[in-house]
């Protein structure tokens, strides 16, 4: 076992718990404080929590694996696509923040319910968010188990590893809720940046520098330096599809959507919007470089084996402490996503389900206690999913998450921009889009559809178009919500001049 690397990991876990406890000491006992940190997160913390939350285990391990197979084109796909999220910050984020503050919203489904005065829409949005988020928490637990097993050369089993990571997340989240989440995200974001820089630096140095490393790979696999890249994967259609997909689906992740509520001011959102493309520009290049260079030392890896290329390269070329730090940064990536997902699901089940049932009996203390209990239950459920044979079912759901959430994008835009849209239009848009996608996915799995039935584009593109058309048509033929409901929503958006 690599004792130094394990020591770094243990130190990281202890630090996370300590920060979580600090968050607990600083927070108050209200639902607003526990779930959205009392809307008092400033620009720097907001930026780090957005970045750390969005960059999951896939960012650290999956990116490098994909770059190993497909080459530098993958950087274009991911970096440009994710930085386009800055545009959704601009178009959606500021408006979500304004109505969130004005109407005292805590969960994403609350926004839809208040906008249209519709409990049915609240339920549809809630179900869609839960279905597409819960499997993702399980994948982070799986990533943690695999990474800890790798770090300890198998002396800590996958099951124990997944349990340790889940336990630590649960403890600090139950203690301080969103404030602990944000503070740990800050530390985890910095760790990811330093870990990525250190990993790429040590590997580049061992390979003779950037130029030499790239030259060596170019001699071996020149296709990794141009499009369509290795295996001919990154076609123009795929590239454009991903650029559009990230733009639509990222803000619809409920844990990112909820983060628009936590900002202290609109200035904090503007700062995050501008800083986001800069950090993705730097951060995404690091695992991609290591992944591409992996072809020099470990040629011929296929399938899932390629996903281990980053730890394999760092272990081979960096000192033990640096390997430990880079692995801890990998844990930071997956934990910072899983905790936010647990918290947003807990907030939705507490506020949109329990508090609706309790009505006047829902006291702030009761809501916070319920939120904590739900975090514990969800953590146990996700761990159970990660450790059982249900994994294959949830793996399928995870694969559908991005498209499933992108389908909800037109409804979100309509809620925030189109006063004539209706609850029925949003419900129809989401239901028709998701059901159509389920049918396409099933037919595709059975081999009943040709691989290029969307002319080489991802199914998300025509499905978002379909969801938009359904929303417009149904909104045109159904009754609008009462004017006072619409006005009470848009008054919070329109009282500022800049839209």
């Amino acid at each position, binding site marked *: 076992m690599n004792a130094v690397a394990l020591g770094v990991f243990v130190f990281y876990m202890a630090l996370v718990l300590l920060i979580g406890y600090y968050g607990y000491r600083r927070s108050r006992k209200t639902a607003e404080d526990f779930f959205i940190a009392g809307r008092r997160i400033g620009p720097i913390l907001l930026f780090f929590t957005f970045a750390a939350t969005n960059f999951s285990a896939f960012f650290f391990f999956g990116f490098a694996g994909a770059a190993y197979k497909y080459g*530098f*084109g993958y*950087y*274009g796909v991911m*970096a*440009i696509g994710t*930085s*386009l999220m*800055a*545009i959704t910050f*601009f*178009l959606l984020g500021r408006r979500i923040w304004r109505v969130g503050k004005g109407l005292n919203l805590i969960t994403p489904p609350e926004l839809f319910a208040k906008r249209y005065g519709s409990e049915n829409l609240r339920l549809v949005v809630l179900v869609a968010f839960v279905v597409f988020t819960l499997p993702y928490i399980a994948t982070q637990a799986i990533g943690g188990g695999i990474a800890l097993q790798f770090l300890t050369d198998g002396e800590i089993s996958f099951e124990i590893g997944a349990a340790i990571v889940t336990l630590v997340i649960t403890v600090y989240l139950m203690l301080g809720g969103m404030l602990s989440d944000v503070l740990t995200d800050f530390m985890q974001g910095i760790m990811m940046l330093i870990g990525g820089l250190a990993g790429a630096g040590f590997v580049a140095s061992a390979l003779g520098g*950037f*130029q*030499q*490393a*790239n*030259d060596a790979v*170019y001699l071996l696999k*020149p296709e990794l*330096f*141009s*499009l369509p890249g290795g295996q001919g994967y990154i076609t*123009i259609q795929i*590239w*454009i599809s991903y*650029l559009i997909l990230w733009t639509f689906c990222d803000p619809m992740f409920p844990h990112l959507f909820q983060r628009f509520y936590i900002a202290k001011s609109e200035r904090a959102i503007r700062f995050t*919007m*501008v800083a986001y*493309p*800069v950090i*993705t*520009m730097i951060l995404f*290049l690091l695992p991609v470089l290591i992944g591409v260079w992996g072809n020099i030392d470990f040629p011929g890896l296929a399938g899932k084996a390629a996903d281990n290329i980053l730890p394999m390269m760092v272990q081979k070329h960096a000192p033990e402490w640096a390997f430990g730090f880079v692995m801890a940064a990998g844990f930071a990536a997956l934990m910072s996503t899983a905790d936010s997902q647990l918290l947003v699901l807990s907030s939705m089940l507490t506020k949109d389900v329990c508090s609706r049932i309790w009505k006047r009996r829902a006291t702030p203390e009761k809501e916070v206690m319920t939120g904590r209990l739900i975090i514990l239950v969800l953590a146990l459920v996700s761990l159970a999913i990660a450790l059982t044979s249900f994994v294959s079912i949830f793996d399928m759901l995870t694969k559908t998450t991005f498209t499933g959430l992108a389908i909800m994008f037109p409804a979100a835009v309509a809620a925030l*921009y189109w006063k004539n849209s209706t609850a029925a239009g949003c419900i129809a848009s989401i239901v028709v889009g998701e059901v159509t996608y389920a049918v396409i996915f099933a037919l595709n799995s059975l081999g009943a559809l040709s691989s290029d039935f969307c002319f080489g584009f991802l199914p998300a593109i025509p499905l978002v178009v379909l969801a938009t058309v359904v929303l417009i048509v149904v909104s045109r033929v159904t009754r609008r919500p009462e004017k006072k409901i619409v006005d009470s929503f848009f008054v919070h958006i*329109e009282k500022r*001049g*800049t*839209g």
Partner: protein
Amino acid sequence: MSLVVRKSFLLIMLWVAATLLFAVISITIGPPQMFLGLPWIVYLSIITQASILALFLVIRKVIWKTEEEER
């Protein structure tokens, strides 16, 4: 939608369209290796991301400011 929202929205859509067009055209003509041995696509990505910052600057300094002055 107010005029300022429409103008901002239009500008963003124009930027997205131009970016996609530029990306599609340029990926096939760029050299496979440039500075530090990295391919053109890496620099293209960096240029695109930097241009997002320029876009926001234009929206804030031109559209929003003009609107506030007109009011």
